[in-house]
């Protein structure tokens, strides 16, 4: 029999793409053995995700770069975490809620910090939600009702390519029967990104003037009189802000999606607070909602799981036996850059590529464990590394779409590698045993 004949061919319908926070669950995957060869309905990012996650020939586990059996690596991982004085558990945005839950349990057992990649994407938004609140809705409501859709500091054409076609601007909805024609789409950004040409209105603000711009809109929505000079700092004429404020007040259902252009720029949570307050204020005139554009496939799940279990979404310390939340103190970018953490468990994320240089240098100095389906800079430097199955492609479970809607996963094919949940469960069990032996 030829190799091709032995290869089983199947089609998996309604599979879920977990590459970005859109979590599109209408994928039709053609699977040939251990490889997805077609991903119908996926965008360019989704296609790259599905077509490049096949089974790679890597050891299931390594200790200091040497291949070892799974049990040995679990033993060493547990030993590192149990002996650490200030361990951190970090990552979690590209794995299932079931695995995230076990990661929180590990942090609790070892009395460490639990933090997710939220802290370096929409962490400031999480802080702002606590201060102002979030006037929220689902993407289904946006699809059926929104006639004014604003994207601020976000470039969905490149980061969430199907957001527009599936949820926010193109689809025909119950109260917007003509789809795109019934909606006004506005982009506010510091650069004319690839999303800008598809919008009805593009407003280019000066870098680092989001806070001022949002407060100008708040003032205009409140009916205050502003002068041209008040808007100078934003680089946008008063008339443009007046026009936008008027559109916001007079729409039937407005929604404000914001990206990391707000949360990563100077002002951070204060920028987001201004946006949240603006959306709240607008409800005196019409219905207006606001949602962050979440990046990774299950970063929203990470916020939910950590919140259920500790009461806080990220940056939580469990060393006293009860949860304490303090961004800046217990967030991983800080515990590493300040040289405080003495061991780490990194799940499905790549701080060695994304963190600041002082944080990366410290991570390279301490023992840490990494779980990832692919070889990454973080996996390369790990003391103990596990190759795990890819969530959504090989493992079932639950993920949360960016609007906090849980979506089940339908895996395409089995992996010879264990899931994150399985590895974490084994580590957690060994931690319990090692602690009881002490």
């Amino acid at each position, binding site marked *: 029999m030829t190799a091709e004949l032995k290869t089983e061919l199947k089609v998996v319908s309604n599979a879920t793409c977990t*590459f970005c926070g859109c979590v599109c669950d209408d994928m039709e995957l053609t699977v040939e053995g251990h490889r997805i060869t077609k991903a119908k309905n996926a965008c*360019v*990012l989704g*296609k*790259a*995700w599905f*077509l*490049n*996650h096949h089974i790679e020939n890597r050891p299931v586990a390594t200790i200091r770069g040497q291949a070892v059996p799974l049990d040995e690596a679990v033993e060493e991982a547990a030993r590192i975490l149990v002996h650490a004085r200030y361990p951190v558990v970090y990552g979690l945005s590209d794995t299932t809620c079931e695995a995230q839950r076990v990661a929180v349990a590990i942090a609790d057992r070892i009395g460490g910090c639990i*933090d997710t990649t939220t*802290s*370096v994407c929409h*962490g*400031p938004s999480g*802080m702002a939600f606590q201060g102002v609140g979030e006037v929220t809705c689902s993407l289904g409501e946006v699809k059926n009702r929104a006639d004014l859709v604003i994207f601020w500091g976000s*470039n969905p*054409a*490149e*980061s969430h*390519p199907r957001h527009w076609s599936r949820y926010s601007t193109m689809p025909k909805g119950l109260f917007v029967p003509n789809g795109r024609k019934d909606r006004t789409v506005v982009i506010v950004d*510091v*650069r*004319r*990104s*690839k999303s800008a040409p598809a919008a009805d209105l593009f407003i*280019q603000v000066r*870098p*680092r003037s989001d806070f001022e711009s949002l407060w100008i809109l708040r003032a205009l929505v409140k009916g205050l009189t502003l002068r041209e000079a008040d808007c100078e700092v934003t680089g946008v004429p008063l008339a443009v802000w007046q026009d936008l404020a008027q559109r916001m007040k007079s729409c039937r259902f407005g929604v404000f999606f914001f990206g*990391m252009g707000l*949360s*990563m*720029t*100077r002002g*951070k*949570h204060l920028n987001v607070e201004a946006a949240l307050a603006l959306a709240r204020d607008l409800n005196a005139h019409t219905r207006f909602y606001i949602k962050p554009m979440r*990046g990774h496939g299950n970063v929203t799940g990470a916020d939910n799981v950590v919140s259920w279990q500790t009461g806080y979404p*990220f*940056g939580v310390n469990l060393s006293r036996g009860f949860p304490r939340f303090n*961004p*800046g*103190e217990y*967030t*991983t*970018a*800080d515990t590493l*850059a300040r040289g405080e953490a003495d061991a780490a468990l990194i799940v499905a994320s*790549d701080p060695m*590529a*994304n*963190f*600041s*240089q*002082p*944080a*990366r240098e410290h991570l390279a100095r301490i023992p840490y464990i990494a779980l990832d389906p*692919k*070889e*990454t*800079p973080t996996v*390369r430097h790990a003391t103990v590394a596990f190759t795990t199955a890819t969530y959504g492609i090989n493992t079932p479970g639950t993920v949360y779409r960016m609007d906090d809607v849980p979506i089940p996963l339908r895996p395409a094919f089995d992996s010879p590698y264990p899931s994150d949940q399985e590895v974490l469960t084994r580590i957690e069990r060994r931690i319990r045993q090692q602690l009881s032996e002490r």
Partner: protein
Amino acid sequence: MPRETFILIPGRTSRQGTSLNVSKLAGEYIDEISTVFLCPEDMRRLGLIDGDRVRLRSDQGIAEVKCEAAKPGELPPGVLFLPYGDASSRLMSGDTHGTGMPTSKGIDVELEKL
């Protein structure tokens, strides 16, 4: 060429997003995250052509990358765009100002032709 101060906006691109699924250790991904974009006017003014190497220096660190002209109108003068990756991480500060989030967009950098 004297050093000039710019505002750096790191961000996501389609190519960065697709290539990271292939490998974050080689090939297209490395090329994408090591290319800084300037507006054509700044390129001309500084005598730069596509592919020239430049050094970016922030308060935190240094990164050497190649430069390319952005599409006309995409970037205003004085603003640089760099796809997220190792080079952008080198330029961002470890200090998060009590938020957990380093200032990762809108970073002051000096640009110097190599």
